[in-house]
């Protein structure tokens, strides 16, 4: 039991973290039903879409939604509590290796101890394991992902000489942003073949306005304006703006505005800075 309060922050063991309050999520299409069905069938899910479009929020929302009806006895403490679906999120980066996910030996005063990595923990407790930006991780992680995502649902732990059969609730969810990955860092075909893909894009103007209004607490008019701005900026994709402005940033701008920051300034700090002007080499190129 590692749960505790230190300072003002609440600390959880990673496998015990669950979403407690219902996250706000506005379904755009059938993604909620799809995910529910997939989870029921334990089909791994790939969330595909640009950053800040709501992928993570969606996973949290689904974890909350799926966890709620289950009342279980906590395996470790024996306490009866409303069991929520644990959610383990791992942000992948280019140095993330398989052992970072599975676990490793650590030294302490008594010698070496094996410590489970987040994936192992998720497999053991039957959590949803969300690997964010999975293509960023090193290739050796695929070794782990593959047996977990087919009928076997196994996690081999080489160093311990163990194979763990995933607990019933376990599901692997990965996210993938096709926008900014180079050809080098693309999802392998064999990996792709193991997931159903739910596509995310920035919501249409009206819905986005609703989201902004809810999240930022700004006026309805301001949220419509922001959504409209977002739409225009996204028209400029690939002009130094990568994928346009995310809903997340629009929400930030809305929050600033709700606190009295003038609209123009709020948009400058939240949105305009994104556009790194394309390098103007002194080749003045027109007559």
């Amino acid at each position, binding site marked *: 039991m590692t749960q505790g309060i230190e300072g003002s922050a609440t600390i959880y063991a990673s496998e015990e973290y669950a979403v407690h309050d219902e996250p706000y999520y506005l379904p755009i299409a059938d993604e909620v039903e799809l995910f529910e069905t997939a989870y029921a069938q334990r089909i791994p899910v790939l969330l595909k879409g640009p950053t800040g479009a709501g992928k993570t929020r969606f996973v949290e929302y689904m974890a909350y939604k799926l966890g709620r009806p289950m009342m279980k006895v906590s395996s470790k403490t024996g306490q009866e509590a409303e069991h929520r679906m644990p959610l383990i999120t791992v942000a992948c980066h*280019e140095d993330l290796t398989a052992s970072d996910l599975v676990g490793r030996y650590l030294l302490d005063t008594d010698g070496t101890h094996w410590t489970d990595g987040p994936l192992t923990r998720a497999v053991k407790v039957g959590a949803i394991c969300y690997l964010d930006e999975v293509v960023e991780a090193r290739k050796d992680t695929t070794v782990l992902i593959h047996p977990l995502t087919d009928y076997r649902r196994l996690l081999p732990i080489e160093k311990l000489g163990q194979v763990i059969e995933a607990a019933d609730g376990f599901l692997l969810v990965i996210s993938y942003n096709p926008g900014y990955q180079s050809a080098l860092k693309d999802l392998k075909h064999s990996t792709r073949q193991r997931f159903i893909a739910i596509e995310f894009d920035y919501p249409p103007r009206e819905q986005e306005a609703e989201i902004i209004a809810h999240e930022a607490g700004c006026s309805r008019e301001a949220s419509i304006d922001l959504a409209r701005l977002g739409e225009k900026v996204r028209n400029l994709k690939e002009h130094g703006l990568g994928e346009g402005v995310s809903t997340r940033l629009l929400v930030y701008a809305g929050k600033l505005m709700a606190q009295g920051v003038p609209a123009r300034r709020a948009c400058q700090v939240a949105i305009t800075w994104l556009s790194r002007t394309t390098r103007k080499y002194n080749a003045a190129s027109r007559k």
Partner: protein
Amino acid sequence: MTIVGELLARHHERLSGFPAPLEQHYEAGLRALSPRLSPNQLQSWAETGVELTALSLRSWEAAVEYFKAGAELPQSATWDAIETLGRESVQMAGESAPLAVSFLRSSAATMEAVGPSHVRQWADLGRRLYKGNWKSSSLAAQFFDLAPTVFHVLRIGQAARLVLFIDELSRHSYELASACLASAPTVLQKLDEDDRLPFIAFAVELAQSSWADSRLYFERGSTLIQKVHSPVRERYLILSAQVARGHNRSAFQYFEEASASLGELEPDDHHRVIELAEQLAPYSAYAAMDFVTSVPRVLERIRIDELEPWHNAGLRILEASHDGGEAYFRLQSTRGEDILETLSARIELSKIGEIMRLYCKALTGRNVSIQTAESLAEKGIGWVEEHRASTDGSTIFLPEVMERFHEKDENFAAMKVFATHQAAHIEFGSFDFVFDRLGGVFPLRRVAFALAREKPATTDMEEYFDLFPERKLASDLFTIAEDSRIDSRVKREYGGIRRPLARMQQEELAKRPDVRQLPLRNGFVENLVRASLDGVDAIRWPKDRAEAMSRALGLLKAVHTDEAMVEDAAEATLALYEIAISIPNVYENMDEGAWDSVEPMDAGQAMPMQGGESGGDGSQMQLGSSEGSPDDAEYESPQEIDFRGDFKPELVDLLMKLREDAKMGQGGEQSPAQLTPEQLAELLAKSVEIDLDAMYDGDLDASTGMFMNNLMKEAGNPASEKGDQNQPTSDNSTGAGEGEEELIPIVTVYYYDEWDFRAQDYKPRWCAVKESKLEEGDDNFYENTLREHAGLVAQTRKQFELMKPEMFRKIKRLPDGEDFDLDSAIEWMVEKRAGASPNEKIYWRRNKIERDVAVAFLVDMSASTDEEINKREKKYDDDDYDDDPRKYLSWWVSKRRQELTSPPKRIIDLERESTVLLMTALETIGDQYGIYGFSGYGRDNVEFFVIKDFNETLDTKIKNRLDKVTPIRSTRMGPAIRHATFKLMETDAKVKILVLLSDGRPQDHGYGRDRTEKEYAIHDTKQALNEAKREGITPFALTVDRAGHDYLKTMCEDMGYEVVADIEALPSRLPALYRRLTE
């Protein structure tokens, strides 16, 4: 006996020996003078004449002229003058009789012109030109001959300057001096009296500095100077003279250019300009003249009252550095350009086109491109106005410059308003009209009218306009309704543009004509325009007709709602048309009180009933026309609204249709609805949007044909969806969409600044780098080189293979990692047991090593690389031959044979071979690389040859290109380096290297003050290398010039460079060097 008779007799003996006329003239002179002179004077006069005869063999001729002049001398001639004339003649005849003849021949006339008191000065002037030889004598004689006319236009003092000038010229060329002298009276005649002296003064300076231009000056100068406002001509000439004083050869050129420039200005501004120029002159006369020359070009961008700040900024630079200031005023400095840019309130499309494109792209969400309105007019597809904004549905055309306000921001905002309106047409569907689609506001009435039509139309827009008997009226009304809808939509959607748009609308309102002066129907349309400009208050309309107007305004208001679509604008137009046609187009002469403002009717009421009013049962509905009353004035279209530009929905619709057809055609399938030329012709004839007469001269059939050709051509090359390809070079447009075929450009031109180290500033857009692919040659070269250097190739390959990084490198002793590092873990244990504090870093991890290198090789292809490397040359004085010719012969033969089998190598050959070797090395290691050659001549023609571009892979094509690496022309390194830098910056490699391979210092025509100057070129090259460095590129210069150390030291101050002393070592040296650079 009279004194005359006595004197005749006295000298008879002396004079009778000469031809008869002498004595006759003597007598005539005596008789003419006798009444004016005393006997003594007359006697003295006669004796001087006699004295003349005796001076030399031919001096009697002078005497003839002397006596002749006596008879002709003007009444004003005093005895003093006559006496001086005599004395001067004698003296002159002593030096040269013919000179005296000329002097005397014109003396009478001259004295009249110059006045009797200046005889000596005048004689002196002529004498001054006389240098004792026959050429000078004839020049002086010419002067005397011309003297009467010269003195007619010049006072004696001025003439002295002229002679000074002629004298100066005569030192260089008598012919030129003579020609100038001959033309002087006529040239000077043309000038104002006050201008003559300064004109000559400048001539004198010119003669001293660049005498050869004098003739040009005399030929053209007077015309040129007329261009200058007369009160400042003198000051201007003095200014020009200062340039000449600097012994500048191009003084006349300065003068000519500056004069021409002044001619372009308002005469009233000349004073100010000259005054400003005079302030510069103490620092540099050239700068002053350049300033004058540049003024018209500068004034294109700034207003006259901003000239002074611009001038002052330049003056400050000039004070600090002459070269800097001169470059500034020559408009060859980046600083000057910047200052001009800051001062200028003008917005140029060429500068902001890219921003506008992104802006419009953001608004519309489509790849629109931006071009100048002019380019649209040039296409000859229906648009004729060169300065009005418009759109063809995929490209937005904007005016080239915007200078309606005094502030840059305001002009920019204005340009944005223009662009927004056009973009909004695209965004809000002005061109998506569907004939039978229901709009969001009005019921669908037009279909009912269409029943009466017999012919099917080509486009929906055409079908719609076909409903109206008076197409022009309908087109105008539709434009108003649709523009009005667009404007109100823009105002609602985009807060940022609201204010500038409102401002433009107010401005336009202020410019509208008075409704009361228009015939009624025109007035009606005019009122609608006002309403569309948000100026309902400005509407004036006869009270007794208020209902119709009110209803019309209600209709217009209805299209301002959010739901309104283009179809609603069309419905509104239909209803408006019905109202308009019911209003007679007559002048209403009513007093002030009869006109009133009108309130718009409620939209609901304004809407016509379903089925309309004009029709009966619906099956035969027809729109009215205005035929009838002969009192009606002809209907005129309302005055145009600037920011809305040219709206041609019918034409755009047609163009879109044609494009679609073209696309279908390209796809191989025949569209069933392909347009026939007949249909097209009919459509064109009907449409009021096309005015063929305004587009082409000549007869109608020919212009229709031409127009259709253009249109087809335009449609055949879909301009849309190409906006993202940013052409590095193009005219004033941005983005693509010019309609050209998508060919790979053979030559692409890039412009680069050049560094002027004297001015310490860049010359803006100075060099044109022409990039092209090197043509392909034979493929043997590549393979042969590999074969020839087989050993080296293998060795290099091996070396480079070793460099290939391991993908992962195990790094030990980390605080965190994949697993324990056994050694560290044991140490940790030991130390812990020993009671020491153990080192926590006991993990290892594999880290990815990425080699991410891009390298550009820049190969010098200048003519000097043609030089042979004469290393194998054997000296003749080797004692081996022992004077034995047979031995020598055998040596020679063997040498020849060797040369035949392997011809002597040139520098370029080694450069090429080294390149080949390097390429194999680079292929081994897998670095990105580009190989470029450069040469060229002059700043406009820097040739940049692509042998292998970064994105190309090594294939036969590239191998073949290597064969064509040959010596061409000069070495302008700066721009080539800048372009290679540009190429490198386009790659995304972490490590970027630029290797410059040359055989000598940079040099080119105009790369420095003259051919021999080295500093300029070296400094520019250095600057270019510095720029590369600033961009994070590692530059490296490699030269095979043994003298390379001198300039490389300056050029590559703190950069790597190497002089390869042994040229033949280059092939092995280059890969080795590269290895060192990147390891």
